[in-house]
Structure formats: structure tokens, C-alpha cells
């Protein structure tokens, strides 16, 4: 008991310092995170439910929602297949240039979203490398949906791979080797041995990838052309409404995206909790 008290005195801060630090941290988080999140919903509902629902029923809003969902539905699976393939190659085999490959996979995180859009304009825009050829064949990539999908794939490129690579590296390859030596085929080994081991890490990557894919603004803004009802995603629709001083409508659409963020955080916490309790802790801790 005396020992306990001694410990408390020597390696813990005094109560007043503790309370002060908690107070500072909470104030900071409330000011920068809590209040903005709260404000989205207050602004959206500031003129009542009727005016909240109306902008969400506009055809332009619907087409923005559909485009956002469709974009994520293509970008996330594409990066999922890539992430699994990259993690399989990197975590289960030894080869030269591996660390360079890992660095290159992270590259899109180092690039401004605006630049992520710009590179596709340089390739496929009217004055781009392939612009004349695309025009001659009447294919529109920029200021159209394919460009939006490409830019979204670019900005969300590393999410799933960088989640799976350290996880699969930490798990090693003994289980897979055992399965193969017992006669399982490659696909059987992957589906029955590897996948169950990485399911939470995979989910984690997918959730974060999806949140970014649905919310991306800068990159998509550059390649979209902002054609209402055609090439506007939800974040771009929010911008247009806001710039038209239609604040309630802007915040109404924004509130859907804020809900998406909240769902993302809840699912993410659940996945972290599940991973911890299933003996497959995610590499980044949590």
C-alpha cells in the first residue's frame, strides 16, 4: 500500500496538472472537431425539416449522389484488388527493389489532390497527350465520369495496400506454406488461409478508402468540368450550392457526407475492436 502511494507521487502528475491537460486537450478537440461536426447539422436544419429535405430531392442532388456512389463502387474494388495483389507479392515473397515499390505505392499521398487531377488532364484533356486521339474517336474522359473515377482511384490508391502490406508481413507465410505443401491450390490457400487472417485489416482499408473516395474534392474538381446533373459529385454539388449562397441546401447535402463520416468512424472503431479481440491486431495499433 505504501509502495502504491509512493508510486503515485513519483510517476504521475498532480491532479491539477492532470485536469489542466485534459481540459486543454478536450477544448482543442471540441473547438476543432466537435463544434464543426455539430454545426453541419445545425446549419442544415436551421430552416426546418421541410427546407432540409427539399434540396435533397432535387434531380441535381440525386444525380450527384448517384455519381458519388458509382465512383466509389468502381474505385474501391479496383484499389482492393490492387491492394491484395501488392500485399501478396510484397509480404509473401523476397525480391529486389521491394522497398522502392512500397515507396512508390505511397506516392499519391505525397501529391496534392489538385495535382492528382492535373496529371489526368495533361494525359487525356483536349490539349493533352492523348487528347487528339480521344477526340478523333469521340471518347470523352476528362469532364466526364471516367476522369472522375480515374482521379478518385489515384487519390485513394495507397489506402488498402498500405493497410495490408504491414499486416501480412507481420503474419509471415508459414500458414500459406503449410496449406500449399498439403496440396491446396494457390486460390484455395488465399481464400481459406490468407483472407480469414486479414479480413479486419482489409475492412479497415476499405472503409477509409471509401470515405476518401466519396469525399474527394480537389482532384475530382479539376477533372469534372462541373456540369450540373452530369459530372457533379456530392462534394462538388455542395460547393456549387454554397457559392450560390444557397447555404441551407449546401449544408443539407453536406450533412449526408457528415453522416457518412460518422458511420465511417463508428465502423472503423468496431473493426479495430474486433481486430484486437480476434488476435489479428492491426499494425498501426489503435
Amino acid at each position, binding site marked *: 500500500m505504501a509502495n502504491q502511494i509512493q508510486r503515485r507521487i*513519483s*510517476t504521475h502528475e*498532480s491532479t491539477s*496538472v492532470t485536469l489542466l*491537460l485534459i481540459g*486543454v*486537450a478536450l477544448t482543442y*478537440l471540441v473547438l*476543432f*472537431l466537435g*463544434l464543426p*461536426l455539430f*454545426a453541419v447539422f445545425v*446549419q442544415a436544419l436551421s430552416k426546418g425539416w421541410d427546407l432540409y429535405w427539399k434540396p435533397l430531392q432535387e434531380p441535381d442532388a440525386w444525380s450527384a449522389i448517384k455519381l458519388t456512389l458509382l465512383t466509389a463502387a468502381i474505385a474501391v474494388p479496383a484499389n482492393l484488388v*490492387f491492394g491484395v*495483389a*501488392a500485399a*501478396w*507479392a510484397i509480404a*509473401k515473397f523476397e*525480391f*529486389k527493389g521491394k522497398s522502392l515499390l512500397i515507396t512508390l505505392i505511397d*506516392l*499519391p499521398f505525397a*501529391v*496534392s*489532390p*489538385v*495535382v492528382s487531377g*492535373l*496529371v*489526368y488532364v*495533361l494525359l487525356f484533356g483536349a*490539349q*493533352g497527350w492523348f487528347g487528339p486521339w480521344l477526340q478523333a474517336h469521340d471518347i470523352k474522359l476528362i469532364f466526364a465520369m471516367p476522369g472522375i473515377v*480515374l482521379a478518385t482511384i489515384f487519390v485513394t*490508391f495507397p489506402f488498402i495496400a498500405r493497410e495490408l502490406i504491414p499486416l501480412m508481413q507481420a503474419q509471415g507465410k508459414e500458414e*500459406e506454406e503449410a496449406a500449399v505443401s498439403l496440396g491446396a491450390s*494457390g486460390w484455395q490457400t*488465399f481464400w481459406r488461409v490468407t483472407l480469414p487472417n486479414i479480413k479486419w485489416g482489409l475492412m479497415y482499408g476499405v472503409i*477509409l478508402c471509401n470515405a*476518401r473516395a*466519396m*469525399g474527394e*474534392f480537389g482532384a475530382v474538381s*479539376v477533372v469534372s468540368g462541373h456540369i450540373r446533373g452530369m459530372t457533379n459529385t*456530392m*462534394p462538388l454539388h*455542395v460547393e456549387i450550392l*454554397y457559392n450560390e449562397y444557397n447555404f441551407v441546401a*449546401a449544408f443539407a447535402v*453536406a450533412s449526408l*457526407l457528415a453522416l*457518412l*463520416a460518422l458511420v465511417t*468512424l*463508428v465502423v*472503423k*472503431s468496431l473493426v479495430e475492436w474486433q481486430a484486437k479481440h480476434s488476435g489479428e491486431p492491426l499494425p*498501426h495499433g489503435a
Partner: protein
Amino acid sequence: MSQFRAHSVLPGFNLALGFTLLYLSLIVLIPLSALFVKSATLGLDGFWHVVMGDRVLASLRVTFFASFVAAVINALFGLIVAWVLVRYTFPGKHIVDALVDLPFALPTAVAGITLATLYAPNGWLGQYFAAHDIKVAYTPLGIVVALTFIGLPFVVRTVQPVLADVEAEVEEAAASLGAGRLDVFRRVIFPAIYPALLTGFALAFARAIGEYGSVIFIAGNMPYISEIAPLLIVAKLEQYDYAGATAIAVAMLLLSFALLLAINILQWWSSRRGTR
């Protein structure tokens, strides 16, 4: 082939690596190389002419300065938040912990319009600043606010696991040798978490430099004063000045790589000094 990779009984290497390299090249490497090829068509003189333009220089200065200030704010408060989340318990801690990742999950445009509304002169927070004649929204200060929001999780999430790993024994030993609490922090804990803090700072800084969506709504976007470099890229694109946009993009990339390199060197140097 045998030289290129070690032997393994597992199948699928060629398929997995082949697909990885193809996808990486098509989505990332070839498009990014277009950036450098395009800026090369300007020539060094042309590139220099664009980048050294007054308005471009001013926007680069605003971008890097605001990003630096925001990263410093996040380093300081992020450290406190990480400390509180690791060391103390209080009601609602798990919710607070989960909320730290909000800037990763909330679309930047939503953050942008919300912060602009909060910090506008008649907004919930802006009115208190306005009472003291301080304008936040539509000034460089507003840019710092948006970038602080965007970079908030980085320091917390890099410092948190390292801080949790600092062994209690070391602290106890220092304390039993008569070190005060502040001494223990300064001499024992801080050196252990310093590299992670620097990493978080660098990540927040790098993210802030490229940020666009959350900033443009709150910045006011006045040329020379509150116009960020990514916005100038968009403006050049809208005038179909591809070469000009590319030159600014390349300048931004080179500057941020130089910065990250400097921070990496600083980290390498300090970790060497730390382990003696």
C-alpha cells in the same frame, strides 16, 4: 529470375507482382511522369519565369507558411491530446479517441464550408474574434484554421502508440533518482517520443501543403494575400494554361520533397544522437 527473387513454394508471385506493377504504372507512374515531361517543354527559363512570378511566389509563401504554422499548432496540441488519451482515463474517452480521426473521414469541402461559416464575422466563433477586431475567415488566419483541422489526426496517431510503449520502469527509475516530473518528461519521455512527433509534424505539414478543398472556402482567395498555390494551379487550368499549372505543381512537389528530406535527415540525426 532466380537472382531477382528468392525461391518460395507459394504460387502467384508473377501474377501478383505483374498486376501490381501494371496498375501502379497506369494509374500513378505514367500520369505523374506526364507532369515532368510537360514542365520540361517549358524549358528551364520558362519554368523559372512562371515560378518566379510575383503572384505564384506569394501563393507559395502563403501555402508553406500557413502549413507550417498549422503543423506547429498540431504538434503542440496533438502531443497533449496523445498524452491525455494514453495516460489518463475520463468518461467518454473512447468517443473522443474515435473522433480524432474525423478529419480523415469528413470530406474536405464539408469541413471548408463549415469552418468558413463558424469563423465568419457573424459566425459562432467568428463573432468573438470580430469583437476584438480580428478577422479569421477570408484571411490567412482562416487558412491556418482549415489546415489545423486537416492535419489534426497525424501527430496524435503517430505519437499515441510510441507514448504507450514508453516503459513505466524507466520513468520510475528516473523519479526514484530524484528527478521531478518535468525533468522526467524532458529527459526521459520526450526523447523517446520525439522522432514520432517529428514524423507526425512532417505528415501534417505535407498534407497541409497540398490541401485544397477545405481551404478555398475560408481563405477568401485574395491574390498575394490569401491565395494558396493549389488554387493558382486550378486557376491556370481554367485558362487552359497547362504549362503554367504544371510548373507550379512541379515547384510544389520539389519544395515538399525537399522539406520531407530535411525532416528525415533531422530525424535520422536525432535518432543517432539518441542512441549514441
